C-alpha cells in the first residue's frame, strides 16, 4: 500500500514546525530543546480554545503546521490520531478530585479525558465530518497509526491526516510513565500523487525481520526512545533528507513495520 505525503507538521521542543525542524533532522541546524510556551490553537473557536488541554494543544501544533492555510481541504480530511496515553494531566486532576471527601469532578475535565479529545477538537476546528480513528498501542502507537491510516487512504480513497502525539507526563505519574517532553507530528496523506506531493510512503506490515531504525544524533535518539510519538523520527529523517530509504518501526506484537520512502 502506497500513499503520498502532501505535507508534514511537526511540533516539539527544538522541532517547531516542519520547515525549521527539517533543518535539524537533516543535520543542517542545531537541536535546541528549550521548553516551549503553551501552544495557542489558531483554528479553535474561543470556547474550545479556552477548554483545550495540554494534549490537545500539542496535537494541534502539528496538525495546524501540516494543513497551513489549506482550510477548505482540511475540512475534507479523514483522521487517525495515534497517541499512547492521551492527557495525563487531566487524568491526574480527575483522580485527585476522586480522592476528596466531597467528590466534584469538573465536567470539562471529564469530556477532555476521552482518548479522542484531540480528534474531537480537530473536527470542530476544521468542520471535518469524515471518519476519524483514535487509537493506542502503547510504545507501538506510531506503527499502529500507520497501519490504520494506510488502508483508509488507499482502500477507502480518503485523504487523511495521520497524527502522532504524546504529551509529557505529569509529576505524580512520571515514575510509572517517564515521558519528559511533548512531541507531535502530522502527515497529510493522499491516495494519488498531487502537484504538492513531497514523497510517497509504502507500509509493509508483514515484515518479519528488520532491526528498529534509530536516530544518528544522540539527543534525537534520546527523544525517540523517551516519547512514544517520537518513534516516527527515523521516517521524518528520511523525509527531511530528501532521501529514499526504509525506516523500521516497532509494531505492537513485536513485529516490525517497515515504511519505505520514495522521491520520484
Amino acid at each position: 500500500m502506497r500513499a503520498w505525503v502532501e505535507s508534514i507538521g511537526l511540533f516539539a521542543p527544538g522541532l517547531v514546525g516542519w520547515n525549521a525542524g527539517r533543518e535539524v533532522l537533516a543535520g543542517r541546524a542545531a537541536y535546541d530543546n528549550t521548553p516551549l510556551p503553551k501552544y495557542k490553537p489558531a483554528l479553535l473557536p474561543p470556547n474550545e480554545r479556552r477548554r483545550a488541554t495540554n494534549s490537545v494543544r500539542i496535537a494541534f501544533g502539528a496538525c495546524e503546521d501540516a494543513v497551513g492555510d489549506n482550510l477548505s481541504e482540511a475540512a475534507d480530511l479523514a483522521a487517525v490520531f495515534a497517541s499512547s496515553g492521551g492527557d495525563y494531566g487531566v487524568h491526574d486532576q480527575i483522580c485527585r478530585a476522586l480522592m476528596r471527601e466531597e467528590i466534584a469532578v469538573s465536567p470539562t475535565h471529564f469530556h477532555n479525558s476521552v482518548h479522542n479529545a484531540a480528534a474531537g477538537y480537530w473536527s470542530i476546528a476544521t468542520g471535518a465530518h469524515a471518519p476519524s480513528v483514535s487509537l493506542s498501542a502503547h510504545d507501538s502507537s506510531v506503527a499502529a497509526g500507520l497501519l490504520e491510516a494506510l488502508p483508509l487512504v488507499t482502500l477507502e480513497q480518503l485523504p487523511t491526516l495521520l497524527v502522532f502525539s504524546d504529551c509529557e507526563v505529569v509529576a505524580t505519574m512520571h515514575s510509572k510513565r517517564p515521558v519528559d517532553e511533548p512531541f507531535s507530528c502530522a502527515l497529510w496523506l493522499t491516495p494519488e500523487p498531487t502537484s504538492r506531493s513531497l514523497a510517497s510512503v509504502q507500509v509493509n506490515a508483514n515484515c518479519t525481520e528488520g532491526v528498529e531504525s534509530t536516530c544518528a544524533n544522540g539527543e534525537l535518539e534520546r527523544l525517540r526512545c523517551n516519547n512514544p510519538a517520537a518513534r516516527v523520527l527515523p521516517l521524518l529523517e528520511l523525509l527531511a533528507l530528501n532521501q529514499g530509504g526504509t525506516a523500521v518501526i516497532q509494531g505492537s506484537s513485536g513485529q516490525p513495520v517497515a515504511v519505505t520512502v520514495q522521491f520520484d
Partner: protein
Amino acid sequence: MQALAISHYTLSSALGVGIDAQLSALREGRSGLGECRFDRGAELATYVGEVDGVDDVSLPPALAGFDCRNNRLAAMGLNADGFGAAVSQAVQRYGKDRIGVYVGTSTAGIYQTELAYRELSQNNDALPDWYNYAGTHNTYSIADFVRQYLGLQGPASAISTACSSSAKVFASAHRAIAAGYCDAAVVGGVDSLCLTTLFGFHALQLVAQDVCRPMDSERRGLSIGEAAGFALLERDHDGARMRLLGYGESGDAHHMSAPHPEGLGAIAAMQAALTRAELASHQVDYINLHGTGTAANDLAESRAVSALFGTDTPCSSTKGFTGHTLGAAGIAEAVFCLLAMEHGFAPQSLHCRNLDPEIACHVLLESRSAALRHVLSNSFGFGGSNCSLLLGMNSAVEA
C-alpha cells in the same frame, strides 16, 4: 464492500456471563440494572449495570501485570461461550501471527489509578509499588491483555473513540483484513465501572437517578454499565451464517459532549453503512439505537433515523437492559443484533413507558417475533464520533 464472516461471538454484561444469559434476559424483559453500590459510586443516587463476580476472577500468573477490574472482566468474557477455543481453531487455520486484535475501550483500567491515588497521601505523593500503569490504565492495556491471553501475534491496537469505540473496531478489522495485514481478527470491547465515569457523567448532569428510560417522555439520563464482548471475524465464505455487511463512520464536528441536534453525523454514518452493504433503507429489518436515555441524544438520533428510514422500521434501545456500557456498547449491541437475527425477535426498548411524542421513529415498547435478515446498530460517542454497523444473517446456512 467484501463482507466479513462473524464466526463466533460472546458477551458478558449485567445480564450475566455468556450469550445464553443475554438471550433469556432480552426475551423475558429482565433488566440487569440495580442501585449503585460500586465503591464511592454508592454516594450517587443512581442505577448501574454491574457484572457480578468480576472481583473473583484471577488472571494467569504470566499476565499478573495486567491485573485490574477491566482485564478481569475481559478474562471473564473471553472464558465464556467457548470463545478461546474458537480462536485456537482459527490459529490452527491461519497461524497466530495472522490474526489481528482490535479492542475498544473508553477508560481501560483507570479504576486501578483511582485506587493507587488513594495511597498518595501516606506515600509522600508517590504512587504505590503495586501500581502498573502500562498493564492497567494505558488505553492499549486491554488490547495487549486480550492478545496475550489468546496467544495471538498479529497486529493489535486499542480503538478509543469514547462510546463508539467497539463499533469502530469492526471497521478497523475490516481494513486490516482487506489490506492483508491479517486473515482474521478478534474484535471486541471492554469497559468496567470506575469513579471517573460515574462522577464524570454525573458532573455533566447526564445520569438518571432512576433506571435509564431511553425514548421515554420522562427520560432523565443514562445508567452506566460495564461489559466485555468479543467476535471473531474472518474473510467471507459460503458457510458464514452471520456477516458484517457494512460499516459507516463519521464526525459531528459540532460539540465535545453533545450530539448535533439534527443528527447530521448520525445520518452520514448510517448512510455510509447502507452504501457499503449495497442495501436500501427499506431492506433493514431492525435498528438497535444508541439510545442512551439523555434528552438530547435520543431526540437527535430519532430525527436522524426518521430522516433516513422513515417511521416504520422497528427500533429499540437495549440500554435499559445493560446500562450504557460506553466503550463496550458497540460490541454489546452488535451481539444483541446477532442474537435477535439468530432467534427471530426484535427486543423491546426496556423501561420506556410513555414514548416521547417528539420521538418519531418506530420504537418497540414490547419485544416481538420477527424474521430479521439485515439489522443496523448505532454507536455514537463524545467528540462527535459516530459509527453504524450493518449486520446480516444468511438463513440458508444452518446455525
